[in-house]
């Protein structure tokens, strides 16, 4: 395990200490628990938006805590959900009088964390809550029947859900409305990833899986969950074509649609490659008659030091465009 760390057991604690030091004007923790991270910038009467999940995905999740986006994050150990108590403390702090929306990924452990927390604060503190579960990974499971619970996992697309819901909350919409916006973004986003190398969870100490030097795995999840196809590494354009084929067909995104695109590096893949990919995405979408309103390129949701990337498409309407354009000022993501 080649990492710049001290004791693996202190990984999260020391990482968080660094974050609070570097961003001391903007971030703080609740009751001395470093794993309950909240924005210092409250806005009376605004719907609180909170998230949480395992670490190892920076800037996801906590990186989007700040002005114009979300209010707090319960930070789990690497690839581990935070605890129910942390989620409760987080919710109490994030409530600014208008209720709290949970936005988190569709994972077992996170559901087990946030649902009991929501029950608790509704009962004990009379805080109104709602939840939206990110489930954008088209490679992780088939689509769910209308009204049925999605079995897809949440990956980088949750960025768009934060972005839109965060803007709606910042515009002082009600909890019901903010949830509606979050749902709309969530229902209109699809993602697929590809991995070239594994990652190593510090406390585990060895790579999450094995893969040959000339292989890639299309559809791999951000914890190294198996994808839909393992094969020889192909040229960037071919990889993009295969991923987009699946993504576009899924919603489906259609001729005349307008989308926002997120090209997300998984950790070790240089920005250069992400832009080579961006170029191809633009060619393919142009051919399909889908126009791109805005590109986001960079590391938005990583898998520690995994090499690879994901593509997310968000179908826009006038309302979502307005929220996409809304300014954001967080330590990890700024939009002027």
């Amino acid at each position: 395990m080649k990492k710049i760390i001290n004791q693996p057991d202190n990984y999260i604690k020391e990482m968080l200490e660094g974050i609070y030091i570097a961003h001391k004007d903007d971030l703080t923790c609740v009751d001395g628990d470093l794993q309950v991270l909240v924005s210092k910038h409250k806005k009376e009467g605004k719907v609180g938006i909170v998230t949480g999940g395992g670490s190892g995905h920076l800037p996801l999740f906590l990186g989007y805590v700040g002005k114009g986006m979300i209010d707090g994050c319960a930070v789990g150990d690497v690839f581990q959900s935070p605890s129910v108590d942390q989620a409760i403390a987080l919710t109490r702090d994030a409530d600014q009088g208008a209720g709290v929306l949970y936005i988190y990924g569709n994972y077992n452990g996170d559901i087990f964390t946030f649902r009991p927390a929501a029950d608790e604060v509704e009962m004990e503190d009379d805080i109104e809550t709602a939840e939206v579960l990110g489930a954008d990974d088209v490679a992780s499971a088939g689509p769910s029947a209308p009204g049925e619970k999605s079995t897809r996992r949440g990956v980088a697309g949750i960025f768009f859900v934060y972005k839109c819901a965060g803007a709606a909350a910042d515009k002082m919409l009600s909890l019901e409305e903010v949830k509606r916006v979050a749902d709309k973004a969530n229902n209109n986003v699809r993602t697929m990833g590809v991995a070239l190398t594994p990652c190593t969870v510090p406390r585990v100490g060895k790579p999450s899986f094995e893969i040959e030097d000339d292989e890639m795995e299309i559809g791999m999840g951000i914890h190294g969950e198996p994808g839909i196809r393992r094969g020889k590494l192909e040229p960037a354009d071919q990889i993009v074509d295969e991923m987009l084929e699946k993504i576009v067909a899924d919603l489906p995104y259609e001729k005349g649609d307008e989308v926002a695109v997120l090209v997300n590096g998984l950790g070790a893949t240089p920005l250069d490659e992400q832009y080579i990919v961006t170029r191809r995405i633009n060619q393919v979408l142009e051919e399909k008659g889908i126009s791109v309103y805005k590109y986001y390129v960079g590391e938005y949701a990583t898998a520690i030091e995994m090499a690879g990337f994901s593509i997310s498409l968000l179908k826009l309407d006038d309302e979502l465009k307005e929220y996409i354009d809304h300014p954001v000022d967080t330590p990890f993501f700024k939009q002027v």
Partner: protein
Amino acid sequence: MSSFKNAEAGVIVDQLIKTIQKERDYLSEIDGKIGDGDHGINMNKGFTMCEKKLEGTTYNLSEGLTTLGETLLEDIGGSMGPLYGMLFDEMAQACEDADDITVDVFADMITGAVEGIQDISPAQVGDKSLIDTLVPAKEAFVEAKEAGKDFAECLDAMNEAAEKGWQSTKDLVAKIGRASRLGERSRGVLDAGATSCYFIITTIGNAAKELLA
């Protein structure tokens, strides 16, 4: 004897902690095959945290189990914290008013354990999870009791069923948890949670039998 004292059975919780600590690496190794290789680490973290909380205090069985359940629920994230947290919490509740742990009380405990899990998880027998150990173990205990077997015999039946259930996960395709993404690739290896659950059930079973002896 046909029962043992709640007050004297805190040792069962001690045994549980020792077992998980001992099996840490084995549990991670199994989880590494079709999961992410951290099951032993997660379990050990929670149980060792509980050990620290209990240190220097006196506790009966229900108090020990309460502390264990709370520790897992409050401090341990992941799937395991809530699942085993609820399991031990329900077991504790089922015996907290009992001075003596009789076969009936224990039946309530193991039934509560199953309910605790099923309260939050939709997992069914056959999905390749700890449920495959737990549910048959509970059923075997209850059936044996209804068939008029004594407490120790019921515990034997439970232990046997737990082992069989655990082993059954080898041939199953995972339908829940991380491994479910693997489909057919998940067949052929034991499930990590079913393994830890086997250790937990049989540790309780054996410790209880010693207290009965």
